[in-house]
C-alpha cells in the first residue's frame, strides 16, 4: 500500500464571523493553497468536505460538490461529505488517507467547517440538543456538553484528587500557546487567578474551562508519497497511523466516566499501526473541549499513569520544554471549535511542527499526534503523523 503525506494546510479566521458557511470554506481553501504554491486546485482528484451543522444552521445538504465548485476543484475520483460531530475533520483525514493508500485517489483535499452563529443568538444552545441521542439524552436537556464534563470532572476530582487549580492551568497554558495564533478566536493571555475566579457555567466548569462556540473552516491536502515529492518543496510529513473507537453512545451505557476506554483502544491501535509508543510522541494536539478533557487525555493516551493527569499539567510536562507539549497552537480553548474544522486545524499544526515552521515551534519534533473525542464522549479518534516512516 502507498504512503500518504500531508502537503498543505490552512484555515479561515475563527470566531464569531460576519460571513456565510460558503464564505468561510473559501477562506480556508485559499489559505491552504497559499501554504503550498506548488499544488493547485487542478491537481486535486478528490475532495472530502466535513460539516456537522450544515443542515441545521445553513439549510444546505449535498455540501461537497458545492464547496468543490467554490474552490475551483473538479474532483474525478471522490466527492463526499463526512460527519462525526467534534471529530468530523479527523474523520475526513482518515478516509482520505485510506482512499489514497488503496489507490482510489491520488491528491485529496479535506476541508471542514461550521457556521454556527445564526441571526438568533440563543439558537445554538438549543440546536446542540441534536448532538447526543435525541430521543433519550436530548429530551433530558443534555446537548450542550458542560453538564457532562462537569460530571466527569467531579468524579475525576473525587477519585484522583484532581483540583480546580490544575484544570485552570490547562486553560492558562492553552491561552498562552494561542497568543500569537493569527487565526484563533481568543488571543488574550489569562492568569490562574482569573481562570479560577471566572463565572460558573456548570460547577466546577467555569468560563475558561470551556471552549467557545465558533464559526470557522480549515483545509489540508493529502497526497500519495510519489505525487507529494513533486507537489511540495517542504519536508514531507507522513500520516503513519489512524484509529477510531466507540463503545457506547447514550449516557446510560457510559460505564466509566473517568477512564475513557474507547480512547485507550483508539490510541493503542494508532500507536501499533504507526509502530510508535506514547513515549515517542514529541508534540500532541488533544481535544481540550474542557480542561478536564485534556487532563484525562494525558492519562488515556499513555503520557502518564491513570489519575496523574493533574500533576502532569501542574509539573509543566505538557508545556514547551516538558515531556510532550500539548495544544501548541492554543487548542480548542484558544482557537475555538468549529466541529468540522477542528481535527483539520490540529493536523495543520502538527504538519507545521514536523516541518519546523510552526508559530510556536517544538524544537526537533519528528512524531506528532492528534486526538478528538465526539458526542457524549462516545467516540475517540487518534492520528499519528511523522517526519519519517520508521
Amino acid at each position, binding site marked *: 500500500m502507498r504512503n500518504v503525506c500531508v502537503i498543505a494546510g490552512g484555515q479561515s479566521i475563527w470566531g464569531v464571523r460576519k460571513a456565510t458557511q460558503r464564505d468561510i470554506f473559501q477562506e480556508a481553501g485559499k489559505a491552504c493553497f497559499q501554504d503550498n504554491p506548488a499544488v493547485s486546485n487542478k491537481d486535486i482528484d478528490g475532495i472530502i468536505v466535513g460539516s456537522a451543522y450544515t443542515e*441545521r*444552521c445553513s*439549510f444546505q445538504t449535498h455540501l461537497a460538490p458545492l464547496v468543490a465548485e467554490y474552490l475551483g476543484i473538479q474532483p474525478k475520483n471522490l466527492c463526499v461529505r463526512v460527519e462525526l460531530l467534534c471529530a468530523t475533520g479527523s474523520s475526513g483525514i482518515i478516509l482520505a488517507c485510506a482512499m489514497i493508500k488503496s489507490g482510489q485517489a491520488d491528491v485529496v483535499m479535506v476541508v471542514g467547517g461550521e457556521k454556527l452563529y*445564526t*441571526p*438568533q443568538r*440563543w*439558537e445554538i*444552545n*438549543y*440546536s*446542540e*440538543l*441534536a448532538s447526543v*441521542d*435525541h*430521543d*433519550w*439524552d*436530548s*429530551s*433530558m*436537556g*443534555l*446537548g*450542550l456538553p*458542560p*453538564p*457532562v464534563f*462537569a*460530571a466527569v470532572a*467531579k*468524579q475525576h476530582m473525587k477519585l484522583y484528587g484532581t483540583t480546580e487549580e490544575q484544570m485552570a492551568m490547562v486553560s492558562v497554558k492553552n491561552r498562552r500557546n494561542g497568543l500569537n495564533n493569527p487565526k484563533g478566536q481568543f488571543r488574550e493571555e489569562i492568569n490562574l487567578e482569573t481562570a479560577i475566579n471566572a*463565572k*460558573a*457555567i*456548570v*460547577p466546577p466548569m467555569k468560563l475558561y474551562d470551556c471552549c467557545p462556540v465558533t464559526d470557522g473552516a480549515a483545509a489540508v491536502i493529502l497526497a500519495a508519497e510519489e505525487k507529494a515529492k513533486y507537489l511540495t518543496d517542504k519536508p514531507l510529513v507522513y500520516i503513519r497511523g489512524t484509529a477510531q473507537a466507540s463503545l457506547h453512545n*447514550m*449516557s*446510560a*451505557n*457510559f460505564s466509566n*466516566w473517568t477512564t475513557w476506554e474507547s480512547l485507550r483502544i483508539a490510541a493503542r491501535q494508532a500507536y501499533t499501526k504507526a509502530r510508535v509508543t506514547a513515549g515517542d510522541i514529541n508534540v500532541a494536539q488533544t481535544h481540550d473541549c474542557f480542561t478536564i478533557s485534556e487532563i484525562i487525555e494525558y492519562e488515556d493516551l499513555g503520557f502518564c499513569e491513570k489519575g496523574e493527569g493533574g500533576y502532569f499539567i501542574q509539573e509543566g510536562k505538557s508545556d514547551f520544554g516538558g515531556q510532550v507539549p500539548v495544544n501548541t497552537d492554543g487548542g480548542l480553548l484558544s482557537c475555538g471549535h468549529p466541529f468540522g474544522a477542528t481535527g483539520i486545524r490540529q493536523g495543520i499544526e502538527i504538519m507545521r511542527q514536523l516541518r519546523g515552521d510552526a508559530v510556536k515551534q517544538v524544537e526537533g519534533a519528528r512524531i506528532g499526534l492528534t486526538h478528538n473525542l465526539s458526542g457524549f464522549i462516545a467516540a475517540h479518534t487518534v492520528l499519528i503523523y511523522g517526519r519519517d516512516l520508521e
Partner: protein
Amino acid sequence: MNSALEGKYAVTMDMYPLESSDFNRIHPFYDHLKEGRLTTTRCRDCGKKSFPPRVMCPHCMSENLEWADLPVTGTVLVVTEEEVGVPVGFETPLIHALIDLSGELSLFARIRGCKTGELKEGDQVKLTVFPVDPLPVDGKKGVVILQERVFFAFEKL
C-alpha cells in the same frame, strides 16, 4: 410585509421523541410511563436487557423481546447544576444527576423541582412523568391533530 419566518426563524426543533404507534415501534415505553412505570426491553432468547428499548437485541439479533420494569427510585452519585446556556424549554438552573437505579442501570437524568445546592450525593430520587409539547400531526382535510406526549425525569424524595 407578512413573513412565514416571523417569530420562528430557523429555530424550531422538536426535542422530544415521536412517541405514538404512528411513528415509533417502541411506543409501549411511553404508555408505560403514563402508568408511572420505567421499562425497557429484555431478550427472550439470550435474556439480556438493553437500555434504551429496542426492536432488536444488540447481543444476539433476536426480535423476540419482552418489556421489563426498571426501578423507579435511585441514588444520586453526582450532581451538576447548569447556570449558563440552558436550552429553551428547560428551567434555569438545569439540574442533572448521575443516578444509580439499584445497580440495574445508571442514568444521567434531569432532576426537576430542585434549587441550586438542594440535591446532594447519596440523596434518593424517584421517577416523575410529565406532559411535554404535544405533537402536531397532519390529519385529513387540513386538520391538525395534537398528539399528547409525556417524558420523564427524576425528583428528590
